[in-house]
């Protein structure tokens, strides 16, 4: 299935990517998607660094690692937010 990925803030800068579409196995969870991205190696491995405090949203709602992705969904990955 197809997933539309967005990156924000320091993560966008570190990875050097703003957005991309990727194909992943059906019924993947957010954690599976992260594992796939980490497999790219190099800077992508920081996605699973627990000290980075990665946050994610699925279809514009904050998401947890166990959340299941749907075909065509929008997944955003970003560092802890700092608004206000």
């Amino acid at each position, binding site marked *: 299935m197809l997933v539309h990925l967005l990156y*924000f*803030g320091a993560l966008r800068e570190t990875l050097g990517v703003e957005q991309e579409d990727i194909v992943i196995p059906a019924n993947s969870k957010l954690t599976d998607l992260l594992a796939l991205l980490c497999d790219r190696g190099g800077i992508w491995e920081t996605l699973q660094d627990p000290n980075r405090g990665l946050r994610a949203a699925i279809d514009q709602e904050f998401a947890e690692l166990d959340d299941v992705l749907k075909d065509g969904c929008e997944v*955003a990955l970003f560092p802890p*937010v*700092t608004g*206000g």
Partner: protein
Amino acid sequence: MTAKPASLISSSLTTKALDPSRRGSKFQQNIDKTHSVGAIYSFVGLVRSIGQQGQPIDVLELEHYPGMTETKLRQIAGYAAQNWQLIGIDVCHRIGPMCPGDVIVHVIVGASHRQKAYEACGYVVEQLKSEIPLWKKEIGNAGASWVTP
């Protein structure tokens, strides 16, 4: 008997300078037509000239997640309005580049009594810090760095 009027709830993003005085004055006019408002609390967040590492700042750049930011702002304002029976709430967050002294965010809440307005205002301000997809980048002579929570 007239039905209890719904709260006036508004939330928005802007790339332009925020003027809390003008917004505050309009808010008071709009929500207090029947003089049922006893208390208005407001919060103004400002860009400081000193950054998180003590470095001088020329520009603060606020990145956001288009779509989700607006949705979360609306959810937070709506929840506060309902939970504290607000007569009105207005939240406006600036995005993009801004300078020290500029207003980053303006929150105004009106209620019949002060305690509800106080709690609601504090709640919204805390939520802005932790639940809205916004990221601050500080830019100065020393370079650029992302703010951490």
